[in-house]
């Protein structure tokens, strides 16, 4: 096996992994703050993909330029979901939240089927066959753009949480909920905001991945599972862990496809998951509790 082929595939895997990481970032931020396990994660991502698809079909907008619009729409959906539904179950037993999110997931897939049908659809851009050469690496231009866009959105999220007053308030809620109530933070509003921001992230990841993947409603389950694998590997609730987990899963899938068979690629990400669960159950960058 020539080394430059391996380097090429690994880099492509890294770039895809960045998009996985961005999507998992949304899941992890929501869980880290609200402790809601978002079983409708992949569904929100597929809605983001369809949003970008519609913008492309009707206005000729390339998926990357659709990010602000789709992100804003998913922010609104996520905010409404938390404010209208999930906040009512904050003090209910955990399985109530699970049931709510699982039911929501089923309904969203059904809605996508009704609206868009079961067939795979994609955006066809002229730039799809462009490539970028960096030294020995020859990469699909789209994959490079996807990676860069994922880094940019993730960077925005990190800056928001680190420096914006609302970001600090959200981190305070994640840190100590009693303390947050003591200082008079409006916890329910901040939860809704977090769910909105997490969903916007997921929507952005949906737009980006549409450059690489065809969309169909059943993709949702795959992405939910993938995001959970990524987040558990990286550490539930850890933002940098989500990115790291995404990179690892992206690379391992790509290399598995090259060295063995593409159909065996999930074996590697799940193998990684099992290894992490045995050796470091809190995840690579997760906090021991």
């Amino acid at each position, binding site marked *: 096996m020539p080394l430059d082929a391996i380097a090429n595939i690994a880099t492509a895997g890294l770039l895809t992994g960045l998009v996985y990481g961005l999507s998992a970032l949304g899941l992890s931020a929501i869980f880290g703050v609200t402790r809601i396990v978002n079983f409708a994660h992949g569904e929100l991502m597929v809605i983001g993909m369809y949003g970008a698809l519609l913008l492309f079909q009707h206005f000729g907008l390339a998926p990357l330029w659709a990010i602000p619009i789709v992100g804003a729409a998913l922010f609104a959906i996520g905010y409404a979901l938390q404010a209208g539904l999930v906040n009512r179950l904050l003090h209910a037993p955990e399985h109530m939240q699970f049931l709510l999110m699982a039911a929501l997931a089923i309904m969203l897939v059904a809605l996508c089927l009704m609206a868009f049908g079961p067939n795979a659809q994609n955006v066809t851009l002229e730039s799809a066959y462009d490539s970028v050469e960096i030294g020995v690496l020859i990469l699909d231009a789209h994959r490079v753009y996807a990676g860069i866009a994922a880094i940019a959105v993730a960077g925005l999220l990190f800056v928001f949480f680190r420096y914006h*007053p609302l970001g*600090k*308030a959200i*981190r*305070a809620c994640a*840190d*100590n909920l*009693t*303390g*947050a*109530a*003591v*200082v*008079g*933070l*409006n*916890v329910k509003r901040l939860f809704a905001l977090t769910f909105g921001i997490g969903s916007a992230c997921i929507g952005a990841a949906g737009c980006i991945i549409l450059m690489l993947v065809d969309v169909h409603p059943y993709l949702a389950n795959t992405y939910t599972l993938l995001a959970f694998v990524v987040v558990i590997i990286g550490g539930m609730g850890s933002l940098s862990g989500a990115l790291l987990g995404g990179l690892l899963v992206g690379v391992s899938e790509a290399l598995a496809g090259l060295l063995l068979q593409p159909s065996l690629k999930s074996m590697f990400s799940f193998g990684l998951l099992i290894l992490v669960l045995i050796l470091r159950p809190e995840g690579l960058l997760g906090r021991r509790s």
Partner: protein
Amino acid sequence: MLEVRDLDLYYGDAQALDRVSLTVDPGAIVAIVGANGAGKTSLIRAVAGMERPRHGSIRFKGRDIAGQPSHVVCDLGIGQVAEGRQVFPNLSVLENLEVGAMLPRARDRQDESLAEVMALFPRLAERRDQAAGTLSGGEQQMLAIGRCLMGKPELIMFDEPSLGLAPTVVQEVFRVIRRLNRQGLTVVLVEQNVALSLKLAARAYVLENGRVAISGTGADLLADDRVRRAYLGM
């Protein structure tokens, strides 16, 4: 300033407060003492909007706040230094203070409040970029008080501020409370250190099994036989 009337609070079927009434005048220090489980923290949490009382009224500056959520109560000017300090361990000292100033009433005055708090607690200024979880217990208590002051309260409820602190630090905390009171803050003080808090307090209430068993001036209670036997070990 704060007027609690006939307050009943339940956790499920268990009654935590039974027709509790108390009055806090502007500028006063009012002490609430009692054994563990007597309902002191429940009373504070009910006033702070963190528990919803079943009956009774809580009036603050003439407005009934019973059942209002905590972010509304805080924004009216009732601050709280909670039991166990409740700082944000992974946020820096400075971020803890900034989050304390997020109330609408305090937001515009954040810089000025920060300067005041840093002047009151130079230790916090030294450790401004350190994670709050790495501070000592005494420093965390200072941070909890400073964070509360960032919210520009008119009344502060202290819940067991001396719990788990070294004696010299306890004295420091009480010095700060007296100083804040002299600057015009109204204080509600829940303390296990009964002697110290009765000496400080204009009025005091003894809670037993969720009821007000004895009330009077701090000096009256210090002289009261029942209080001396039960809480001062004399």
